[in-house]
């Protein structure tokens, strides 16, 4: 009974003071739809297929990403374009199977596939999650558009005559998109 009373007299007020201090702490809650989370620079979200500065796709359909993919969610078929270059005729990523490990990004020798920062791509139908090449290139275009907007209209007007988008490399594109 003595030890019990010791607990009651000593430990409980200490515990109460701890909880009381926490009332005035700033809540860690993010009110999500209004407040977006701060994503880590290494965040791996929805894929995109990058383009060269002239708008041509970088992917040469070598199949290394598909080989590296542990979830086996990438499928591709190659073709030769009019200049005799090997490109992807079909390039599909099943975003439901994808585990967002980023191995495809690492395997890619052409720096063509990246995992972006987009995480809000939920849909109602499962087939909608199968992303075709056009959709993945579209993701890149959207990200680029946003980046251009952020770079500012003034900058775009100044550099209009030899405007070239900087080549997206891993560090560069990720960090500038985030800003």
């Amino acid at each position, binding site marked *: 009974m003595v030890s019990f009373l010791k607990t009651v007299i000593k430990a409980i007020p200490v515990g109460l003071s701890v*909880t009381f201090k*926490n*009332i005035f*702490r700033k*809540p860690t*809650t993010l009110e999500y739809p209004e407040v977006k989370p701060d994503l880590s620079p290494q965040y791996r979200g929805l894929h995109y297929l990058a383009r060269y500065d002239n708008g041509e796709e970088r992917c040469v359909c070598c199949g290394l990403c598909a080989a590296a993919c542990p979830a086996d969610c990438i499928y591709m078929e190659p073709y030769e374009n009019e200049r005799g270059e090997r490109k992807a005729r079909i390039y599909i990523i099943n975003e439901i199977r994808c585990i967002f490990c980023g191995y495809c990004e690492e395997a890619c020798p052409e720096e063509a596939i990246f995992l972006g920062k987009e995480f809000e791509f939920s849909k109602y139908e499962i087939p909608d999650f199968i992303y075709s090449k056009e959709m993945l290139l579209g993701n890149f275009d959207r990200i680029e558009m946003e980046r251009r907007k952020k770079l500012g209209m003034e900058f775009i007007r100044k550099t209009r005559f030899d405007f070239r988008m900087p080549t997206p490399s891993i560090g560069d594109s990720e960090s500038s998109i985030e800003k």
Partner: protein
Amino acid sequence: MDILSLSLIVAKVVVIFAGLMLMVAYMTLFERRIVAFIQGRKGPNRVGPQGLLQPLADALKLLSKEDVTPAGANKIIFNLAPVITFVPALLTIAVVPVADNLILFGREISMVISDINIGILFILAIASLGVYGIILGGWSSNSKYPLLGSLRSSAQMVSYEVALGLALVGLLMVSGSFSLSEIVHQQSSILEWNIIKQPLGFVLFAICALAESNRIPFDLPEAEAELVGGYNTEFSGIKFAMFFMAEYANIIASSAVITTLYFGGWQGPILPPIVWFLIKVVFFLFGFVWVRATLPRFRYDQLMRFGWLVLLPLALLNILITGIVLVL
């Protein structure tokens, strides 16, 4: 009794119970917000400004829920149990004076529904009735977890009632009255509050009040971690809501009784008495929430040992000390 005084009583009943029900509704929000703040969350703040309409939304949701009766349940008792729990929880407030006597149109109106001279006995008696609802609710569900919860509840409430009653004996010896109005009138200044005369009694009473309202750390009847939901597992919709409203009404009634008995009730300077009363009650409501956010649940044997081997001897000791001091 003329029509006027009858209508006055009806008005008092309506106003006080409406106020109590409003407090019960907003107590849910208050608790959720405070616990959320303590846990580093924001709590419900979507429905209305700062979530002020949340109780309304909750009520609508619970009212529109399907009302499930388990197979093999005793339907009459199953339907009756929430009511049996709820009504005593509300009744306690009837003897608590919420403000000073009011002189209105040349007649004195006491701000208490029923100013009976055995108010404390009434509170003890009504508080004991609440356990019936819980036991019957658990038993009539025809389900093992509710039954276990209600059995625990009955053992717990009976055990702590002993200490609760004995904790009050010290207070009664000091004040020499069973009437709550009388006790409030005795505590006209802060130095005459019964907390000064009965500090140990107050602590014991507060602990027992916690136990009687089945709150953390004495929430063994519910014990959601081990008993699913305790005695209210099988209840849904408005019946479940009534159990919960009963719990909150019990908390508010306990706070009101603690305020009245130990903290001078509505007595206080400058502000009107009803405001003082509400300030003190809200302070104790916060205390209930604060304790809930801090302490873990007792184990069953700890609970029983604490009730019988700690609280009961301390209550008796309190009576002894009070007696000695009074005689000297």
